[in-house]
């Protein structure tokens, strides 16, 4: 009973407290809500430990059974150990720690972010095929926007940048706002059901 009732009760009390904190200015209530928000990094830290234990379990199993690519798991353990040992012993501002972060992790991330441009090109190529009325409309509007955003567009017609801006500001913005409003209503509905305990997907699946 406690495994279900207690989390639901805590969710309800904290949920209502946070909603009241947003609308009402009562110092004691606002302080309590701020304190609870301050606990979030603590909870997240414990959750990271749980996740790291899973990482260790999955990759040690791969090394033990010499599964394909097991040496990648060994490299993961090596860098995990080095990062944790340096971070705990010398702090996160130590030159070696900064080297691992700034010279390895960040460049790897930037490389992947840069590759997104190529993925946009290949995905656009498939999406912009004029196979029906909708995709033809997409192709025309995308071509106009792209032309309006590069110098050659202005060379073709002086009106091209204005047309591109109109497409972005009017039909595109209208569509985006529909998504925003509908998603926002969906968010509110989902939060309400979680607070009152009608959505319990996080407690071992749907009931």
């Amino acid at each position, binding site marked *: 009973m406690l495994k279900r009732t207690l989390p639901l009760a805590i969710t309800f009390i904290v949920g209502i407290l946070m909603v009241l904190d947003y609308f009402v200015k009562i110092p004691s209530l606002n302080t309590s809500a701020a304190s609870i928000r301050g606990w*979030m990094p603590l909870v997240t830290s414990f*959750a990271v430990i749980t996740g790291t234990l899973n990482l260790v379990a999955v990759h040690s199993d791969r090394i033990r059974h010499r599964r394909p690519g097991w040496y990648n798991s060994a490299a993961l353990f090596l860098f995990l150990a080095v990062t944790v040992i340096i971070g705990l012993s010398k702090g996160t501002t130590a030159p070696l720690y900064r080297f691992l972060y700034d010279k390895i992790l960040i460049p790897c991330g930037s490389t992947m972010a840069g590759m997104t441009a190529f*993925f946009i090109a290949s995905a656009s190529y498939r999406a912009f095929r004029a196979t029906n009325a909708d995709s033809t409309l997409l192709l025309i509007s995308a071509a106009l926007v792209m032309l309006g955003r590069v110098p050659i567009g202005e060379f073709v017609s002086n009106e091209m940048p204005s047309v591109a801006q109109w497409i972005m500001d009017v039909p595109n913005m209208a569509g985006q706002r529909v998504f925003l409003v509908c998603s926002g209503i969906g968010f509110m509905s989902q939060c309400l059901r979680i607070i009152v305990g009608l959505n319990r997907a996080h407690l071992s699946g749907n009931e």
Partner: protein
Amino acid sequence: MLASGMLFTLVTLVIVCTAILLGINEARKGKQPQIRPLAALQAIDEAIGRATEMGRPVHFSAGVGNLTVRGAPVMMASLSFLSYIAEKSARMDCSLIVTVAQGDVYAASDEVVRGAFLRAGKPELYQPGVVRYLSADQYVYAGGIVGIINRENVAVNIMIGHYANEALFIAEEAHHAGCMQIAGTTNEYQIPFFVAACDYVLLGEEVFAAGAQLSQEPSELGAITGQDFVKLFALILVLLGSISATFGSSFISRLINR
């Protein structure tokens, strides 16, 4: 006592909550709404069946959001999908891989998968390698998923949750690996990428509606009716605002800012 400029927001919140709770109440009395079939939802069963026939795994990812701040409601909705997909996979003896980017999502996903396997009558299928924590860094997470998709020969890639810049990277790599793909997110900036790269997409609010369809819970189905009423309210407000602004009146904008 009431914070300034919050009166209209509070009244709107009361209207929204009342409409949704009334919808839920009606559904519980037996008046369940008819929801149009969503192609992406019907494709989930077909995809799991296809992966089973091919003897290859299904991959599920909920994105980089967590359960406290970033896209928390959509992450909660994604857990409903995970529950359904895990149960279906277990019943069909199809291998499932779940990758997560946040510690709290890992804990919840692990519990959901364990419960789903138990409901399917196959608790022995649950192993630590089913749900895998990769990294909270979005690109490390994306790289990890791409590696898994290629190394483990994944047949179906399902991405429903909160996604940022890594969405296209994962979806395009999975497309090139020959995966059937079903995606859904409420992040309007990532929806175009999913539409371009995936076979089926749940757009914005459809993620919540699909969750209700999957569960067939009166509380979830009834909430959809309530949401439709709120959408009507928002539409009327937008129309009134547009008309009043056209005639030079700022009545609606002043009302909203109260």
